[in-house]
């Protein structure tokens, strides 16, 4: 059989296996090497909550999907061109995501009776799953790995751990990936603690590559040319990393030391872990005894003059509610990052959703408004975190930054910006002489002034009790109503300092598709597909949720209908309805713990047209 190398615009590859099979690493390596090769890409790690879920079961399958292409990739892709299935359960869990033309690489060694039974197969899995028409590439990956390393002197367990490299090697052959990046990675990972593991991993990788080249089972190989991306220096970045770095950038631009008080929680922990590294940039992190202590240490640090941050996910945010009210009342700058996951309660911790929006907008006692911003892609978490910090400091208010598990763990190539392109962040420090009145406000923004312990002559007290402008406790009815109104108006006036809502498409028409947060890539892809079919649709995506951009009503006025697509039961749609009751706002929601599929959105749009 002749190998043909076919040029393709983009491919979607899903690596799937037991949660101990190293599929997250394999997928990450494949993504990173593709990024360095120059492809556009988007990734989607999809894994169970258990660290080592029951071996061989469908619920224990860990997957990592990579979408690479010759242009910028907006989504990790709905369906895959290749599935690597390390066991029957991985095949079963992912068969539904196969394209008609898909190639399925399976480790035949793991397709024994015991594993077939654990995955719930009675006979031939390919027949049972009705995927006979796909190109099945059987390879005895486990035994080939063992054969490859029989003279390595390694024990059976260590040898078994290398089999993901065999699969990676095969994938690299099929998609014409140069192996150099993996070599460098292996050197770096193992050189300190396990130098003896470098050579075996490298050998298995090479053997996998050569095996794929030699067997006659693979009809074609594919080439995905580098994307025509804007010139410059790039790196791959996950959303959680970008969030942490955006906060560090805000610390540098404001001259305020960064303080992060947090409690570990999936999927937000990565931000705390990342910040804990960068002590060299002045970041202080406290791993608190609980979520409440996390936010309260941050509030203390804000009072003491730091750029204060706490990071969490939905259940943690619930615990922080009372303290968030304290931050609203004391009017201290605070960034709260909520990496949303499927709820309620513990929900599905490793799966993505946008179901915390109502909690963030409404979930506190009293009249308690605060600013809410959202990130729309993994790399955008950098700008979103920077913006959140800038708003918090300059407007003296807590700001909630909403990201999602999908963004936090997902990654994309990022054109590295220069810090000189970012604006300064100017803390509104108290100045002058005379008694300091902590709740007197700036005429324009209504932000109060910030007096930090150590500043002579500005001694004052803040707290959860209502106060008057002078900072004296007051239960005067008129004063309370005035302060409530001023705190709300302060948040509203942030709108003057944020960019207008960008409209993609004509300013007038039948339908405006609206999204917020991590659904951006999927909605953009859906809208682009439908436009290619000749349909006239406009699209607007919100990075600022509260307050809304000041031109929102004006943009909406040009359309007969607005369709809000979000991963919840209509939180943002309701928020928009409450702000613009005369608009015809429809909702398309999904709550499966999974991102949208592009085809789901195109379907929803077509139904509205």
């Amino acid at each position, binding site marked *: 059989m002749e190998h043909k190398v076919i040029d393709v615009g983009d491919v979607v590859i899903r690596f799937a296996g037991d949660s101990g099979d190293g599929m997250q690493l394999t997928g990450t390596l494949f993504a990173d090497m593709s990024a360095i090769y120059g492809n556009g890409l988007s990734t989607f790690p999809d894994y169970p909550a258990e660290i080592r879920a029951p071996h061989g079961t469908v619920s224990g399958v860990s997957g990592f999907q990579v979408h690479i292409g010759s242009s910028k990739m907006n989504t990790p892709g709905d369906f895959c061109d290749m599935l690597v299935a390390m066991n029957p359960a991985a095949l079963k869990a992912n068969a539904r995501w196969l394209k008609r033309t898909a190639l399925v690489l399976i480790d035949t060694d793991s397709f024994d009776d015991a594993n077939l039974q654990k995955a719930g197969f009675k006979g031939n899995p390919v027949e049972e799953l009705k995927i006979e028409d796909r190109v099945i590439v059987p390879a005895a990956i486990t035994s080939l790995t063992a054969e490859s390393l029989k003279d390595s002197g390694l024990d059976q367990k260590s040898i078994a751990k290398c089999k993901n490299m065999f699969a990676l090697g095969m994938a690299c052959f099929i998609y014409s990936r140069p192996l150099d990046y993996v070599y460098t990675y292996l050197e770096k990972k193992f050189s300190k603690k396990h130098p003896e593991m470098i050579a075996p991993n490298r050998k298995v990788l090479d053997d996998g590559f050569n095996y794929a080249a030699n067997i006659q089972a693979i009809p074609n190989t594919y080439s995905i040319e580098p994307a025509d991306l804007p010139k410059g220096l790039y790196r791959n970045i996950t959303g959680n990393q970008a969030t942490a770095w955006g906060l560090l950038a805000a610390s*540098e631009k404001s001259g305020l030391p960064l303080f992060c008080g947090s409690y570990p929680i999936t999927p937000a922990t990565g931000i705390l872990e990342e910040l804990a590294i960068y002590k060299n940039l002045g970041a202080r992190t406290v791993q*608190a005894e609980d979520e409440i202590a996390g936010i*309260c240490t941050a*509030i203390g640090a804000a*009072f003491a003059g730091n750029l204060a941050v706490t990071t969490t996910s939905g259940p943690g945010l619930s615990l922080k509610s009372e303290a968030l009210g304290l931050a609203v009342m004391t009017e201290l700058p605070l960034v709260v990052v909520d990496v949303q996951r499927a709820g309620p309660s513990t929900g599905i911790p490793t799966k993505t959703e946008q179901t915390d929006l109502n909690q963030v907008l409404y979930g506190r006692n009293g009249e308690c408004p605060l600013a809410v911003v959202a990130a729309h892609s993994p790399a955008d978490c950098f700008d979103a975190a920077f913006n959140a910090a800038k708003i918090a400091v300059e407007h003296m208010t807590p700001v909630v930054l909403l990201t999602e598990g999908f963004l936090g763990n997902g990654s994309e190539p990022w054109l*590295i910006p220069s810090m000189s392109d970012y604006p300064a962040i100017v803390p509104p420090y108290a100045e002058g002489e005379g008694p300091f009145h902590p709740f007197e406000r700036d005429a324009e923004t209504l932000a109060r002034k910030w007096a930090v312990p150590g500043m002579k002559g500005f001694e004052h*007290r803040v707290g959860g009790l209502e106060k008057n402008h002078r900072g004296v406790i007051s239960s005067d009815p008129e004063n309370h109503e005035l302060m409530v109104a001023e705190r709300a108006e302060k948040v509203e006036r942030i709108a003057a300092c944020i960019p207008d809502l960008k409209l993609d498409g004509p300013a007038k028409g039948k339908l405006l598709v609206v999204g917020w947060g991590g659904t951006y890539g999927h909605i953009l892809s859906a809208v682009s597909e439908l436009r290619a079919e000749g349909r006239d649709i406009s699209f607007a995506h919100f990075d600022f949720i509260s307050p809304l951009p000041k031109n929102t009503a004006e943009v909406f006025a040009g359309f007969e209908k607005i369709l809000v697509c979000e991963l919840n039961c209509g939180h943002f749609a309701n928020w928009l309805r409450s702000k613009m009751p005369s608009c015809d706002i429809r909702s398309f929601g999904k709550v499966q713990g999974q991102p949208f599929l592009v085809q789901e959105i195109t379907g929803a749009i077509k139904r509205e047209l």
Partner: protein
Amino acid sequence: MATYTAKDFKSDQEVRWCPGCGDHAVLAALTRALANVSGALDIDKERFVVVSGIGCSSRLPYYVDTYGFHSIHGRATPISTGIKVANPDLSVWQACGDGDALAIGGNHFIHAIRRNIDINIILFNNRIYGLTKGQYSPTSKFGTITKTSPYGTVEEPFNPGSLVLGAKGTFFARSLDSELKLNEEIMVAAGLHEGTSVFEVLTNCVIFNDGTHKDISDREVRADRTIVLRHGEKMIFGKNRDKGIMLDGLGLKVVTIGENGITEDDILTHDAHMEHIGIHLMLADMKGPDFPVALGVIRDVKAVTYATAVREQVEAVTAKSRIKCVDDLLRSGATWEVK
């Protein structure tokens, strides 16, 4: 050199505690102590921060003319922690009650102590919830009758001292609200101590728990039922200064000097600096009728403080790292050029 008097630390706010409340005397001792500490450590007034949670005693920050933070129920400790870690040059003082620190804030309390955050916690222990008008607290005695325990409580109280020592606290002291001079002395020692200091003040709530500490605080019995411990001094107490504490096997016993051949030399000398908590725990746990209640600084030992360790780590890593700014960070690790 900072030279202040107690008056400089008094704010112009009207003090709103009930007449006769024990908190008034604690506030008086605190303003004196702060003036004293500011001189001893050369800290200007604007570098003092007073933090509190919720409860009667938590009104205290309004009455002290420093930076102040009256926070939410139980959370004074993490707020103090954040302030101290953010700026280790501040002198942080915290006022909290028995409900605030040991019930709703119990978790934060033990963890601050475990971390040895350099904050000064004044624990006002009146064994009752005062601001919510009289419910039992985690320090109420077994059987205490209150609005929420009309037939008496059926739970054992915490002894704050053993809680602090169990968490490997580096400083614990105890006193009575009315002991103005002793309280000032303890607060100064707490202020000079590096690490978490916990000072339990047994306060009287005239409205909801009047006389709860009467069995040791009454003038007629105080000398016989309490002992003031001072480092390096003999553990002697009593109206006639003739009673003392001795080791008795694995425990302690009260003896009378002059009886059974016992002389002052046989009496234990208090060592607040001893690292092992054993004897401090026995002293903190002493109660009537067999023992006097220990007052004064029971424990004061040296250990690395959290904020200092954090600052040192920041400095050490900064000195070593090649990443000096965010631009360096963004360009670190694996990158590639699109030409």
